[in-house]
């Protein structure tokens, strides 16, 4: 408890620094998630149409998942140096697999009869995708986005190691100086942020799930 109070005092002593760290952390996470979504959704749609492409891409995505987050960040270092950009690239890479996999799985799970009916009634390929397949796959895709978001927010802490800033700065400095209260200035908000992200995207998932698909209470 004493440590938490000390940590709070640290924040109060320099609120500007803390606020900046939070903002950088959020900016980094939000951008990475956005880019990951923009890349993974079309890729997921594309691979769901091509079984061979799916095998290769999903295999790669799953391999990517097994690489520790820190390693991914470290890999970007030799190519992009240090700072915000390499951190963003690394987090984007970390954010891709859950969205990609879930988009693929979600689309593959869509009721084949609904798709056949849609085609039989004269919907074009893109009408089938936008009006039938994506709405029906939506809950699964959003679950992927939620997993990805939480992972990105948590992993953004590691950006501090390659000079990306964010709340991880407090943690690395805290460890370096053996100041536990400083470490907590980073650790507690990151934890809360991750939980908040989980809750936020959880409710987004419920809100965006078409009414006809929601579980009957």
């Amino acid at each position, binding site marked *: 408890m004493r440590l938490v109070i000390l940590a709070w005092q640290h924040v109060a002593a320099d609120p500007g620094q803390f606020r900046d760290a939070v903002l950088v952390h959020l900016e980094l996470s939000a951008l990475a998630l956005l880019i990951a979504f923009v890349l993974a959704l079309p890729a997921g749609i594309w691979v769901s149409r091509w079984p061979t492409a799916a095998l290769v891409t999903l295999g790669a995505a799953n391999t990517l998942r097994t690489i520790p987050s820190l390693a991914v960040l470290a890999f970007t270092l030799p190519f992009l140096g240090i700072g915000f950009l390499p951190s963003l690239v690394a987090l984007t890479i970390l954010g891709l697999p859950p969205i990609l996999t879930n988009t693929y799985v979600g689309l593959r799970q869509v*009721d084949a*009869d*609904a*798709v*056949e*009916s*849609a*085609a*039989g*009634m*004269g*919907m*074009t390929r893109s*009408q089938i995708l936008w*009006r*039938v397949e994506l*709405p*029906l796959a939506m809950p699964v895709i959003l679950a992927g986005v939620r997993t990805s978001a939480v992972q990105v927010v948590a992993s953004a802490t590691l950006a501090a190691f390659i000079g990306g800033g964010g709340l991880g700065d407090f943690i690395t400095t805290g460890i370096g100086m053996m100041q536990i209260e400083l470490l907590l200035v980073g650790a507690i908000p990151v934890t809360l942020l991750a939980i908040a992200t989980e809750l936020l995207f959880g409710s987004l998932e419920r809100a965006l799930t*078409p*009414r*006809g*698909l929601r579980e*009957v209470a």
Partner: protein
Amino acid sequence: MIRLRDLTKTFPGQSRPAVDRLTLDVERGQTCVLIGPSGCGKTTTMKMINRLVEPTSGTIELDGRDVMSQDPVALRRGIGYVIQQIGLFPHMTITENIATVPRLSGWPDERIRTRVDEMLTLVGLEPGAYGRRYPRELSGGERQRVGVARALAGDPPVMLMDEPFGAVDPITRTRLQNEFLKILRSLGKTIVFVTHDIDEAIRMGDRVAIMRAGRLVQLGTPAEILTRPADRFVEEFVGADRALKRLDLVAVREVMRAAGAEVDRQMDQGRTIRDDATAKEALARLVGDGGPGLGVIDASGRIVGVVALADIQRVAAADRERAP
């Protein structure tokens, strides 16, 4: 209306064609039932008509126009399509489901609304009670009604129906068959109907096309199929009780004799049957009750004739004489 000429489909990687040089005409306003054991090519044949499956060779003409020269999307909007699993869109309300084709065709909102209500009423569902509900809130039979309403919404002259009553219980099935038969006949639709159920084929079809291994084995009216099966396969397929099935196609009024004095006695014992009942029902009653005959009454309850076992046997005798 629908003209299939030497229609053949060989799926990639298969040596034997799924549909083999099939030639078949369906006249306007008629129901043609494609029937056969699974894998006989009936569904493939149907799906070639709306180009969900592309033929390997042969031609399909719809209303005099080759379907292969038409844009598949435009073609399909003019053809109603109902499948066994119905394929309602679970994320859309019943209204939105039925409105699919009118919306794709760009009808004005007001016309779509009117049309949806009209379709729901047509298939026996109260628009106010059902329009805003979702497919999962409906029973199997209700969903099937919605599936037919959705297929009819764009007012297509042609309907393709693939085992549309396959997924509902037998009682509901019979009711839906009778109901939709009336609806579709009254709308004058040209229908291609796929089933593996011979009773359904006999009940629904103006003509029945029996298929086996991609080929057309016999084409005829239900009565022809039952009384003069082309070969052993058809004979076995229609079943040993084909003589009984045949009686399902004959109304009591077609076999009854003029009412005589004996009618009064049957009437006294309450042994009567409606004149629009089938000969098979009359036979069941005669066998079950053990009486010599039944009084035949019309819709108003007036006595119009009498029917006995011998009258029913005459149907089978006449069929035998006609047979080659």
